């Protein structure tokens, strides 16, 4: 019973992580990619760690997993915030016209973002 539940958690978490990775490759702009990575990373990590917690036996292991979970929940959103703030401060503008046409997206990428 517990094994089934932890299996569900692990599978959900890994699905979220993989979809975050696919989003990283397919989204058109830096800010949208950051959304994909930031949200799915933290949530996927939370589910996987929850699944591992249900599988572990001794108290010390559960305590360490709780510590990793708390750290990930604290650090993940902070990193997204800092990334977005620094990118905005340094002049990387988000693509605002919602044309997902690849031509406009390529043009915007070349002119808008400084190719550093």
């Amino acid at each position, binding site marked *: 019973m517990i*094994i089934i539940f*932890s*299996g569900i958690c*692990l*599978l959900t*978490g*890994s*699905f979220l*992580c*993989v979809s*975050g*990775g*696919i989003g*990283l*490759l397919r989204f058109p702009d*830096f800010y949208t*990619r*950051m959304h994909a*990575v930031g949200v799915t*990373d933290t949530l*996927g*990590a939370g589910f*996987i*760690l929850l*699944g*591992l917690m249900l*599988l*572990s036996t*001794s108290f*010390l*292991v559960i305590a*360490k*997993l709780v*510590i*990793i979970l708390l*750290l*990930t929940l604290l*650090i*993940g959103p*902070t*990193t997204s915030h*800092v*990334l977005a703030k*620094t*990118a905005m*401060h*340094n*002049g*990387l503008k988000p693509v605002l016209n919602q044309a997902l046409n690849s031509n406009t997206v390529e043009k915007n*990428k070349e002119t808008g*973002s*400084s*190719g*550093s």
Partner: protein
Amino acid sequence: MLTAATLAIFVAMILAIIRCIAGPTLYDRILAVNMFGTKTVLLISLLGFVMGRPEFLDIAIVYALINFISVIGVLRYSDTSK
């Protein structure tokens, strides 16, 4: 089950590497490295369970902290506007 999750995280890491090599701007690469770091934390925890050695969790904690510090460091020292 654990091996399936490990493989999935490995696939996500490969996707992050692709983005890091092909990212047009600098911030794409920083984002890719950050994602690679959190996936490494999860990979180390999962591998610890698969191989039956729970001491790997110490490495996972260290790596989560170091990942955070590295990203903050990169962002502090890549300010080109000031």
